[in-house]
């Protein structure tokens, strides 16, 4: 096994599109790193550069302590699982698994042993004689994993491997992937745009946008302390509520919300509130803002309430197709907000709910650079 290192890696496509810009990142030996970001952020290109399927325009990619920029894919000793699995449709599962080993002219007995071991580990011994076309989506995914595992590579690259599965199967396979990594401890780089996969699977996550690395850290840390407004808007589902605000004399004001924020320079800022930091203001509690309910989504274990509050919305740049701020907001003076409430609360559209805010869990971002600002507790 070996770590994977990006050193100032840049990828420029013919035509001038910069897919990855100055990416520096170290994946430790045995680590599970998630590359996450919206479509077109360069995460798959970064992965393909490690695989050797894309040429590197500048910088270095290292596997272990060896620079692999000019090493052909087959000699990098890296296995990849493709988004659509890329199983050879004309070969049986057994031959799919054995293909890489046969290419390496491994002795027959060793091939049989490895294929048998992997098939048993992934519970697909009875599928060995079938062809990919005769398998279900989950079984194909397993075979794709098996094909990577059978090579016993130095590192695994997974390109959105669960995105073609239905929701239920995705949850099961996610857990299985986690178990597999815990068992084998192979260095893994995993590309996804799925929040939950990013949060649950990785030792660390690397958030990318527009070809650049935005933040690198353990999932909870990235969630709790987003480095900038993009990460704040991207990580977390539902996304963080963002409002245009103004800091003045140690107080931040956004619409009717007013919060103490000492140490923040006067000027325009962006205020971020995760859906779970807002809760209905009980009797006697201080009301921070009043929400007008538009849509209620009971999810069983929680209720998501979408509505508006007085104020002006801010954008993180992570919104895909402006889905977050569609026609719910008819009035310019009101900003959309999503709140995660206890399932016993069941507001109805049109209700006005007084909400309290946990001031210690508020995020502030510079309105121009988007960088997170530190708030000193009073």
């Amino acid at each position, binding site marked *: 096994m070996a770590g994977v290192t990006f050193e100032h890696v840049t990828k420029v496509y013919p035509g001038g599109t910069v897919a990855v810009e100055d990416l520096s990142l170290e994946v430790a030996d045995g680590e599970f790193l998630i590359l996450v970001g919206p479509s077109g952020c360069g995460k798959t290109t970064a992965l393909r550069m490690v695989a050797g399927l894309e040429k590197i325009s500048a910088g270095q990619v290292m596997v272990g302590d060896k620079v692999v920029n000019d090493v052909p894919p*087959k000699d990098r000793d890296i296995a*990849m699982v493709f988004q659509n699995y*890329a199983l*050879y449709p004309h070969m049986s599962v057994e031959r799919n698994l054995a*293909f890489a080993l046969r290419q390496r002219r491994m002795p027959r007995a060793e091939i049989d042993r490895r294929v048998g071991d992997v098939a048993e580990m992934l519970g697909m011994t009875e599928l060995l004689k079938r062809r990919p076309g005769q398998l279900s989506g989950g079984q194909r995914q397993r075979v794709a994993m098996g*094909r990577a595992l059978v090579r016993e590579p130095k590192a695994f690259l997974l390109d959105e491997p669960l995105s073609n599965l239905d929701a239920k199967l995705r949850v099961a396979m996610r857990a299985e992937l986690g178990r597999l990594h815990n068992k084998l401890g192979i260095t893994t780089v995993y590309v996804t745009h799925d929040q939950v996969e990013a949060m649950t699977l990785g030792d660390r996550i690397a958030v990318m946008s527009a070809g650049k690395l935005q933040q690198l850290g353990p999932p909870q840390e990235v969630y709790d302390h987003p480095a900038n407004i993009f990460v704040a808007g991207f990580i977390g589902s539902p996304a963080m509520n963002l409002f245009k605000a103004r800091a003045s004399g140690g107080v931040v004001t956004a619409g009717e919300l007013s919060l103490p924020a000492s140490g923040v320079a006067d000027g325009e800022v962006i205020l971020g509130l995760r859906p779970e930091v807002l809760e209905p203001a009980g009797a006697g509690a201080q009301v921070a803002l009043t929400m007008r309910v538009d849509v209620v989504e009971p999810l069983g274990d929680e209720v998501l309430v979408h509505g508006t509050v007085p104020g002006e919305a801010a954008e993180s740049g992570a919104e895909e197709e402006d889905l977050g701020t569609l026609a719910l907001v008819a009035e310019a003076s009101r900003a959309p907000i999503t709140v995660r409430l206890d399932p016993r609360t069941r507001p109805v559209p049109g209700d006005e709910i007084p909400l309290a805010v946990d001031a210690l869990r508020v995020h502030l971002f510079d309105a121009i650079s988007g960088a997170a600002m530190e708030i000193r507790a009073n």
Partner: protein
Amino acid sequence: MSYVPIDPGMLRGEIGMVTRPRRRWLPFSPWHLILMPIALIMLTPLWSMVATSLETLPQTRHFPPILWPGDFQWGNYPGTVRAADFGLWFWNTTVVTVSVVASNLLLCSLAGYAFARIRFLGRGVIYMVLLATLMVPLQVVLIPTFLVTKSLGLIDHLGALIVPNLANVFGIFMLTQFFRTLPLELEEAARMDGASRLGILFKIVLPLSMPALTTLAVVQFMWTWNDFLWPLVTLPFNEGAYTIQLGLMNFQGAHTVDWNYVMAGNVMSMMPMLLLFLAAQRWFIRGIATTGLKG
């Protein structure tokens, strides 16, 4: 929950329609009323050939043509074989056709893969120039090709029928188009698994291209087996190198033609092609449907 049987109409996208069985006034699709007469018209020459091959010589000269000879002259077939060197012609044609089909499958695959997948300087231009040559009729290139073949010393030799036809642009075009439809990820996966370019072509791409390869093989087989003009031009004196089509011409004497023998020869010459088509029909139709070659 009640069980609702799935109507085939739903699978065709007719979801939401009332699933009442359609009342049929014919036991088959009305289209057959148009298609069957057309099929009959298409089959008439074929039947006429078979019928003539089983007639006596006077019957072949009867007008209007006799389409049901009544007394079948099966002896026409061994008679035809005895009357000329059919065995040799068959052998010559088989050697030429098998060589040409095999070399076309190999060379067109290599060229088609290069055009479909390998980036090289001038790829687009070369491809366009190749395609443009498809528009040049055979008559225009007949003499230049003859001169080249002659300079290679192949005139009156079976090589004259093989060498100029080792690869053809139609095959390159067809396979290029087909290879482009295969998912690139399969080849990338094979690259990561350690396969070379040729390994990818032979172990991944070609096995997945059976419909296109079969189509090319059948079409090329048909062209070569039936070719008359080029053998006529390049085999002027060597009767020992005659192909079946050239040999059949021999039956047509200067004053009389034994049509029953000529047609028996034609039926026999058609058999290999017919058998090949029947065997490869499934792949052949898929190949035409997936490469966009349907006219």
